[in-house]
């Protein structure tokens, strides 16, 4: 396809596209332009200018609520086989109880997208890797299923697929014999859409999870991290995690 016809197709799509986009143009073209310019074009590689991160406010995370977990399972079609010990689990709720006071807190635990990920250090094949923008993934084309990374991860964030699978989501390929973990919904993030768990939490008005670019001082997550104290789980390991917690 020639460049010109590509552009024509794009123009048509854009002009006839979303009503919100058109309304936005009429009101404030300048604003839209900066927004458009910020979004990553599909043919451009991700860069280290961005570091995706997540801030979880445990004060807003309700005991008994499992919405983020359900949303993740649905998004990636993580069906269970009735074997909780080995079923895939990308995000799970953890309950903390202060034995002295009886105070109970719950929080979602997931891959922390470490800046210095032990899973990548130990992987013998190079299948575990960190993207330029900080998202830690498994390239399942290369993974041999040795599970070293599962042993190395301090957060117990990874799962091994034990069963033959069918009807995987097109954007989330998964298969028997490989290891997997939270991808920060990389298929969404690359299109400027929030991860499924974040949306689920928002939709139920809990708003316990903030997601964004930790390298951008103006992003909501950077602002919140600046204003409030937060912690990394097992900060002593100095992995500089991409997931931070408030209220623990």
């Amino acid at each position: 396809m020639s460049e010109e016809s590509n552009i024509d197709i794009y123009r048509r799509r854009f002009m006839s596209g979303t009503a919100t986009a058109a309304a936005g143009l009429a009101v404030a073209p300048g604003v839209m332009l900066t927004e458009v310019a910020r979004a990553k074009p599909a043919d451009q590689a991700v860069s280290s200018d961005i570091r995706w991160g997540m801030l979880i406010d445990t004060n807003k995370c309700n005991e008994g609520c499992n919405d983020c977990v359900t949303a993740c399972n649905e998004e990636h079609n993580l069906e269970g086989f009735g074997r909780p010990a080995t079923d895939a689990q990308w995000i799970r709720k953890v309950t903390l109880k202060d034995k002295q006071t009886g105070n109970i807190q719950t929080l979602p635990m997931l891959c922390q997208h470490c800046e210095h990920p032990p899973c990548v250090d130990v992987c013998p094949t190079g299948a575990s890797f960190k993207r330029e923008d900080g998202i830690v993934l498994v390239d399942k084309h290369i993974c041999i299923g040795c599970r070293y990374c599962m042993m190395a991860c301090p957060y117990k964030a990874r799962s091994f697929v034990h069963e033959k699978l069918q009807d995987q989501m097109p954007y989330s390929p998964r298969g028997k014999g490989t290891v997997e973990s939270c991808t920060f919904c990389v298929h969404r993030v690359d299109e400027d859409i929030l991860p499924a768990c974040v949306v689920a939490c928002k939709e139920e008005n809990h708003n316990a999870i903030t997601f964004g670019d930790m390298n951008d001082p103006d992003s909501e997550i950077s602002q919140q991290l600046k204003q409030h104290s937060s912690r990394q789980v097992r900060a002593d390991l100095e992995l500089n995690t991409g997931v931070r917690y408030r209220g623990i």
Partner: protein
Amino acid sequence: MIKYSLITLLFSLLLGVYTPGTAADVASGEDTSGPFIPKAQRRFSEEQGCVEPTGEMRANHMEYILDQRDATVHEGIRTRQYSLQECINCHVSDAEDAPRVDNEEHFCSSCHTYAAVSIDCFQCHADRPVKSRFDSLSNSSMHRIGSAAVPPTTLDSEQLKVLSNEDFGNE
């Protein structure tokens, strides 16, 4: 093949089973010895059926998919021309009872069975188009990163450049 057709024609004539139908088949040189390959749902462009000329795709589709795979997994490049997902969207029917990859009538299997080359793509990838909740999300501002409603970004840099230069003035 031509030789075979001629012999068939001669035999049909000899046996007196000659019909206009077989004559037409022979005249168009239709080759029925290869695999039956299901038709794609769409054309890529007016001039071209697939994303590259058909002969090129038959010989080298795996190279295109392999390059795209590394670019997508490691660099987050999500152009659609050579993506396996788009191959499936166009070449495989989304009907409930459409053949799956373990069936010879599935687009990929039709040729791969014929050529006796096994494929392992579909141990992990969906072997048919799967509709998902995610497909309908991109226009809702609640789902967007950042507060403003940003239009979908399945555009490449060339398209964005044109957009900012011509349609909105260059700032």
